[in-house]
């Protein structure tokens, strides 16, 4: 299992670095917009989703009569990290863990194609990851803020997954098969999920201002772009060092 161990090692380092970078970017670019949207969400009532209200509720008698209702909602939705540092810390953990997950997929896929040799190749592989996991699914399902109207969650998750798989297959065919029919099939695969169409909400009426949402879409797209470029580049660097020492050793022994 040397290969598996090496893949996990590279993915762990790349995921850790890129995940921390992404979490820091999110703290400035996307999370403040989510917090703003939650103000609209709470003002609108309805489906709330309150973080940090659970710990605030007991003993805070000074707060208005709205508290019991909010506490009840928080109870219904189960445990949630408290606002502030705890919420930030959980976001960092989520970023690092999924960063390693994305890195495992990226490293495994690139090894099938011969491996990422250096940081520049890594940047291109990272860009492919960005196209597959961010650009393609977000065309049909733009990043949403809390309180925005959405279609059924399970249906959106199925569409998201299918789009990612189809786009990855399409890009792979385009990059690694040199035949015109397969290239045409690749384009069809990339386009198909969007012709089929993402599940849409019944009504687009939203308490979230259009400007805030637009800002959020831009922030999500750019932070993800940087994340994927860093992820690919670090994979290339670490893999280069690993194989570099391996060949160096081989040359020394020869």
């Amino acid at each position, binding site marked *: 299992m040397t*290969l598996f161990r090496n893949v996990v090692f590279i993915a762990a380092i790349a995921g850790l670095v890129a995940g921390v970078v992404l979490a820091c970017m999110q703290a400035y670019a996307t999370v403040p917009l989510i917090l703003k949207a939650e103000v609209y969400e709470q003002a609108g009532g309805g489906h709330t989703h309150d973080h940090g209200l659970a710990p605030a509720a007991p003993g805070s008698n000074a707060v208005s009569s709205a508290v019991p209702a909010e506490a009840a909602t928080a109870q219904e939705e189960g445990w949630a990290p408290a606002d502030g540092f705890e919420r930030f810390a959980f976001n960092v953990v989520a970023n690092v863990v999924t960063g390693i997950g994305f890195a495992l997929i990226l490293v495994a896929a690139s090894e099938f194609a011969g491996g990422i040799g250096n940081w520049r190749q890594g940047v291109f592989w990272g860009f492919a990851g960005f196209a597959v996991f961010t650009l393609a699914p977000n065309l049909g399902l733009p990043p949403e803020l809390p309180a925005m109207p959405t279609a059924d969650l399970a249906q959106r998750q199925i569409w998201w997954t299918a789009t990612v798989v189809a786009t990855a297959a399409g890009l792979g065919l385009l990059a690694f098969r040199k035949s015109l029919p397969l290239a045409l099939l690749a384009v069809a695969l990339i386009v198909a999920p969007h012709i089929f169409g993402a599940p849409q909400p019944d009504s687009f009426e939203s308490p979230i201002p259009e400007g805030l949402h637009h800002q959020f879409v831009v922030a999500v797209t750019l932070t993800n772009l940087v994340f994927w470029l860093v992820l690919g580049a670090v994979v290339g660097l670490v893999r280069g060092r690993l*194989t570099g020492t391996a060949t160096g050793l081989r040359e020394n022994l020869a």
Partner: protein
Amino acid sequence: MNTASVSLGASVSSQSRFVQLALAAFLGVFVMGFVGFSHIDAIHNAAHDYRHSMGFPCH
């Protein structure tokens, strides 16, 4: 696209190579799916900002 001339774990057979890479990719998909797509409330709440910030389907 250029590919690297040196591969990781060069000594393993192609079948074992496939299994190990597939295993790594599967592990990655599982980790991503658990954090990003799990319907368990506590997981959803912990990774809430992350899911929104990645454009994952949420709520």
